[in-house]
């Protein structure tokens, strides 16, 4: 069958109509987004595990993805929910984890680590939405802690965002859509500079799709890369972001079912002032020296300042003040604050692979990581009407240190067996100044206003890949990672981290030119301390060990240049032990089965005013089976269909994205606990119920982009 006939046939199968017919008539040239940026400094590491993916721009834009965190859904096994609001990092589902606000995935923008190890919203909190999605050129996703370069928070893996703009010049993009949502993006990428140099700014505002959901965010990203000499390269990155959003709070399903409150509504009492506000300023740089033999020396310092405040009421009016037990029923509006100033660096010296005899090659890379932070945390109960504090639950200053060393080797034997990895050692130390110790602190009932916790985490990481033939490899990996514990709750002398042990075995089949890549892996991950949401405490609590076991399978295929399709299936079982001996539960909110698929077609459609006209159409579908909300209550299945398309001539592009195109009512989060929410004021009787926060209904967003 000829290539053209094959393309036409595929189009008919996919029922994509006129767009395909047009594509079939024209030879597809490279689309504007096709080039892949090989940013200097991007490390060409060998694969570390079956789930080691480079997500190129074409795959990232295969279906509508509005925010940067949603781009991670392009990786097999990942699902990142689409949220209309701003401020919190999105929930990320991967390999049996529901990683609230990105906690549990190590993330980096360029060389800058984004995770905040001791954040009050969850250890390892990270919000990649401070990166403007249009400047993400590639993401390396590594599922599992199998690379010694992976540091704190790499519980289930890592996501490294490479920033760059392939198409030089400038663009201004304006978007408008449902719920009075508007977004303006401007990018300038000087023609004379390399693809890693750009300046970008975005502003987004929405009224929200229900009550108390208005949000606004302003972000800037700027990166400058310059060759200092033939062998030396400097790159500097600056990121700033300010976000504020109102929050609606939860609704009880029994109230929704009885028509007492709408799914997208908010209770009339004790819900005022729920909000989130987050500011961040990050500056990082990398100085690289590359010798004529290919050896690389890199030093990458960074400084980051983050300020976060959330106000949320989960339970109504159940709380009683711990500082004054005569105060109660004033509303369970928890305010959590986290302000941190941190700095550090990553550095490595990589020796290029050298021949060892006639049948082997060896590359070696020693490296170090340093992060020093100063954090101020507090948790208070506020009166909803005027945000006056009526009980203090936490007030602490934290000093954190993570000093890590690793040695990575990459040994290739007989051109078929690659063994990669090495040890990583991290010294972790936390000093705590607890202003509420010996009194009403919820954090430290054992007392001690000044405490320190220090420990050394030692973790080997190893991955072996045997090439059975040109397309097929068998890969086995083992890794021990770590995650900082909730510092404010640490007692004096405690170990400040939790261990992660993970292994996987799988196969990877790959045809040349990335026409077909398929993976299949079985895995097990054990985390020393599971983080579980406890509504009555206003956030996550640390429980005992958890174990995930499962399977991840994926296919990414690009049989012809204009068609890209991917699908992944994840099946897993996730259980954790509570602090109560002999009591274990399913990890809540983890879909035992997750299926994702993206299909996109793109190509030249013809000419428009004597300029080539390109088109792109993408569909993304996600199915998540019913999650365990508790051992006896399961949430609903989730079906999400997103559709988007774009037409572009040389200077102008018109796009439309539709999220949740099926119009299904989807909960962004659901939890089972006791509350006394009511449409009446005052302290009403409490009962057990499922509580939900709605995800956006069908949202349509149109955009106009002008290139210059």
């Amino acid at each position, binding site marked *: 069958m000829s290539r053209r006939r094959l393309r036409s046939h595929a189009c008919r199968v996919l029922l994509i109509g006129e767009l395909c017919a047009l594509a079939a008539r024209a030879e597809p040239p490279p689309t504007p987004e096709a080039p892949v940026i090989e940013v200097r400094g991007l490390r060409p590491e060998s694969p570390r595990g079956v789930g080691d993916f480079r997500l190129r721009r074409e795959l990232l834009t295969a279906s509508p993805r509005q925010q940067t965190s949603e781009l991670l859904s392009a990786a097999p096994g990942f699902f990142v929910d689409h949220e209309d609001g701003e401020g919190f990092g999105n929930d990320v589902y991967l390999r049996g984890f529901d990683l609230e606000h990105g906690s549990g995935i190590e993330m980096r923008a360029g060389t800058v680590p984004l995770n905040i190890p001791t954040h009050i919203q969850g250890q390892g909190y990270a919000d990649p939405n401070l990166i403007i999605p249009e400047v993400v050129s590639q993401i390396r996703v590594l599922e599992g802690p199998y690379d010694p370069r992976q540091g704190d928070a790499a519980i289930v893996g890592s996501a490294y965002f490479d920033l760059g703009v392939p198409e030089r010049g400038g663009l201004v993009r304006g978007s408008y859509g449902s719920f009075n949502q508007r977004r303006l993006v401007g990018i300038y990428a000087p023609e004379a500079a390399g693809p890693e140099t750009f300046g970008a700014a975005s502003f987004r505002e929405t009224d929200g799709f229900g009550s108390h959901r208005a949000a606004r965010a302003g972000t800037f990203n700027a990166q400058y890369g310059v060759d200092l000499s033939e062998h030396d390269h400097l790159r500097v990155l600056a990121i700033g972001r300010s976000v504020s959003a109102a929050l609606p709070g939860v609704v009880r399903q029994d109230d929704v079912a009885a028509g007492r409150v709408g799914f997208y509504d908010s209770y009339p009492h004790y819900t005022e002032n729920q909000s989130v506000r987050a500011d961040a300023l990050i500056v990082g740089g990398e100085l690289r020296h590359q010798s004529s033999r290919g050896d690389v020396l890199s030093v990458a310092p960074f400084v980051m300042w983050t300020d976060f405040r959330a106000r949320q009421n989960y339970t109504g009016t159940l709380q009683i003040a711990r500082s004054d037990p005569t105060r109660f029923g004033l509303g369970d509006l928890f305010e959590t604050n986290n302000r941190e100033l941190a700095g550090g660096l990553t550095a490595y010296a990589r020796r290029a692979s050298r021949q060892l005899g006639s049948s082997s090659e060896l590359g070696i890379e020693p490296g170090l990581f340093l992060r020093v932070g100063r954090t101020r945390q507090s948790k208070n109960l506020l009166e909803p009407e005027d945000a006056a504090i009526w009980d203090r639950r936490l007030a602490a200053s934290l000093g954190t240190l993570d000093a890590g060393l690793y040695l990575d080797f990459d040994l290739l034997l007989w051109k078929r067996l690659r063994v990669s990895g090495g040890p990583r050692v991290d010294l972790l130390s936390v000093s705590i100044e607890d202003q509420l110790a010996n009194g009403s602190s919820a954090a430290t009932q054992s007392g001690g206003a000044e405490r320190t916790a220090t420990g050394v985490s030692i973790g080997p990481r190893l991955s072996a890949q045997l090439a059975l033939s040109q397309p097929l490899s068998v890969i086995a990996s083992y890794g021990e990672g770590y995650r900082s514990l909730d510092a404010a709750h640490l007692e004096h002398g405690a170990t400040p981290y939790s261990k992660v042990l993970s292994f996987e075995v799988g196969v990877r089949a790959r045809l040349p030119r990335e026409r077909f890549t398929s993976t299949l892996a079985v895995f097990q991950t054990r985390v020393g301390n599971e983080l579980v949401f406890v509504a009555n405490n206003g956030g996550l609590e640390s429980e005992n060990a958890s174990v995930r*076991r499962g399977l991840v399978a994926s296919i990414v295929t690009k049989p012809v240049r204009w068609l890209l399709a991917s699908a992944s299936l994840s099946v897993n079982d996730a259980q954790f032990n509570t602090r*109560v001996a002999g009591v274990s539960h399913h990890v809540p909110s983890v879909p035992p089965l997750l299926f994702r698929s993206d299909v996109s077609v793109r190509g030249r459609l013809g000419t428009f005013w004597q300029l080539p006209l390109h088109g792109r159409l993408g569909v993304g579908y996600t199915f998540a089976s019913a999650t365990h909300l508790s051992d006896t209550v399961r949430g609903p299945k989730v079906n999400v269909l997103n559709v988007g398309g774009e037409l572009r001539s040389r200077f102008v592009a018109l796009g439309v994205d539709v999220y949740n195109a099926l119009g299904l009512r989807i909960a962004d989060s659901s939890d089972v606990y006791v509350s006394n929410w009511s449409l009446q004021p005052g302290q009403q009787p409490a009962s057990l119920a499922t509580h939900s926060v709605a995800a956006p209904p069908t949202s349509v967003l149109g955009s106009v982009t002008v290139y210059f």
Partner: protein
Amino acid sequence: MPTSTITSLLRHGLLLLTASTLCLACASSDARSDDGTCTPDDADGIISEPATLVVTVTDSGFSPKILTTQNTSDITLTLQNDGTTPHGFVVDCLATPNTDGCPLESCFSEDSRIAPLAPGESATITFETPLVEGIYTFRSDAAADTELGPGQFIIQ
């Protein structure tokens, strides 16, 4: 390597992986031990958080009407009678229906009972909350308090 060999390897690899996954799933399905003892569920996995509670009772009811603590926690509770008649404090047992031969109800200890106090009086008691989580009911057991509204003692 011939295509048939590759296909064969792939097929066997997939079978091996599938079998491995099934075994892992089997191993995980029986995570809880069953030694015959009754271990009640604990939804939030948290126990033993001491708390101090102050409850005021008047002729129209308790304040607060809802008390929330963890299970197996040491509680110091003060009852202040601001009413004009005697009022007490007692927590009713909670039905725990089951077919496992475990107890059919969970009760607070006798230490948690406060006999009816005269108007203006107060009493402070200490007790440990029960292991079984749930929403218990507390009330006054004074003879004249049959119409006095009860409260909820939530054990989490």
